[in-house]
């Protein structure tokens, strides 16, 4: 697995690597502040490249995922569908 580097600013720190342990390559993203990992395959990445700006803005809403439910507190991994 080739670590490509860490993408960081004052708001988040994510390590980026190409994971080639499967039958093909995937991008591996690790949120270094929590250790939570997400893999993205080529088609998912291509879709992100093409996604409309509004989709990305919606994704940046904390209530869209990790901080959705005040009763449960912040999620430890990506949440099921609401």
């Amino acid at each position, binding site marked *: 697995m080739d670590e490509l580097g860490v993408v960081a*600013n*004052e*708001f*988040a720190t994510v390590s980026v690597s190409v994971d080639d342990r499967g039958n093909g390559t995937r991008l591996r993203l690790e949120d270094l502040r929590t250790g939570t990992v997400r893999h993205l395959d080529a088609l998912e990445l291509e879709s992100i490249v093409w996604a409309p*700006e509004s989709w*990305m*803005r919606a994704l*940046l*809403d*904390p*209530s*869209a995922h*990790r*901080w*959705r*439910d*005040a009763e449960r507190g*912040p999620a430890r991994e990506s949440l099921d569908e609401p």
Partner: protein
Amino acid sequence: MTTVDVDPARTDPLADRIRSLVLPDRVHGSIYTDPDVYARELERIWYATWVYVGHASEVPEPNDYVRKTIGPQQVVMTRDKTGAIHVLHNRCSHRGNLVCDADRGNAGSFRCPYHGWTFANTGDLLGFPFNQGYGGSRARAELPGLGVVPRVESYRGFVFASLAVDGPTLREHLGAAAERLDRLCRLSPEGEVELTAGWVKHEVTANWKMLVENETDGYHPQFVHSSIFSISGSGIGALYSDKSTAVTRALGGGHTENDLSPEFRRLGVPMGWAGTPEAKIPDYVAAMRATYGSETADEIMINGSPHVMIFPNLFVAEIQLFQIQPLAVDRTVQHVTAIQFAGAPDLNRRLVTQCVGSVGPAGMLLADDAEMYERNQRGVAQRQPEWLDLTRGLHRERVDDDGHTIGTATDETSMRAMWRHYRELMT
């Protein structure tokens, strides 16, 4: 004396006082120390007129941002995905936390560290945690985003902002000072400056106007800076002598300059103004001649860089750029960087070295001035005599071909012009 009937509801005792403290040939010491005067300066000058914020080259890529200031106000200058530059107040719309802490970075969105409210780099509110507490995501449309500074304009990459919704355009504000920025940019073979050398911040316990006045005070260099001039063998002192053909010029709008170009032309050496022989920067000289042609290039390189104070906070001193930031009536920060010219790496390296020597943390030039600012602030707090004299060269002021008032290199023409403008804004 004539007496005027004034509507008592419309009297403005502070304006009357300021009018009596700022006269054509003298100013009262309290103008530097009075907190009420300072409070009005913030409202009438810093939060009303155009103030220099930063340079486009500090946010070269989409989503770059830098923290900047407008007087004591903390702002963030951002470049959005489309390339447009915004100036945002660095204050969360939830409970007022500072949103950005890093001096610079790259981010399309900012997340407040207190409760996680998240904003686009245009100021729009993108969301917040646990939105059921606000009745769901629809609340987003009702809640405010980051404060956006209403007017942002740039001239040759120099970004200015105004907290006032209406007022003169930036071009009108700059007036003749704009040409001085042109003169600076022409020294680049690509016609652009880049502020990429990093910043040093010098804080002094002095009123901001002392710095503004000093920037184009040609009377002090031979005294205050004699030690650095003598050990460095610099000829700068002689530029500010009675024999000098340099002039002090009021450019209008409170902007002023020490125009040293007549002396540089008398010297007649390309880059003589920078104390850098052609042979040491052959690539730069070749690039300049390739861009402008030999004759024009030599003229540009002989005439040199401007020494101009753009009111109230941008000072270009030939090879370095200062941004003046008041923090309180008696506290001021000077942010300073070495000017870098696009397409001039060999010259740029020398400019950084020269600036380290003059205005770096152990630089000798700014340290001299800083000592004077602080002593001056303590001095004007003393009770007698109450006034500061501004008469130097009053009897020999002239008007040049462009209609600007000029004095000799050591005359106080620039201060008188600054105060004239100040009085207009403040009363």
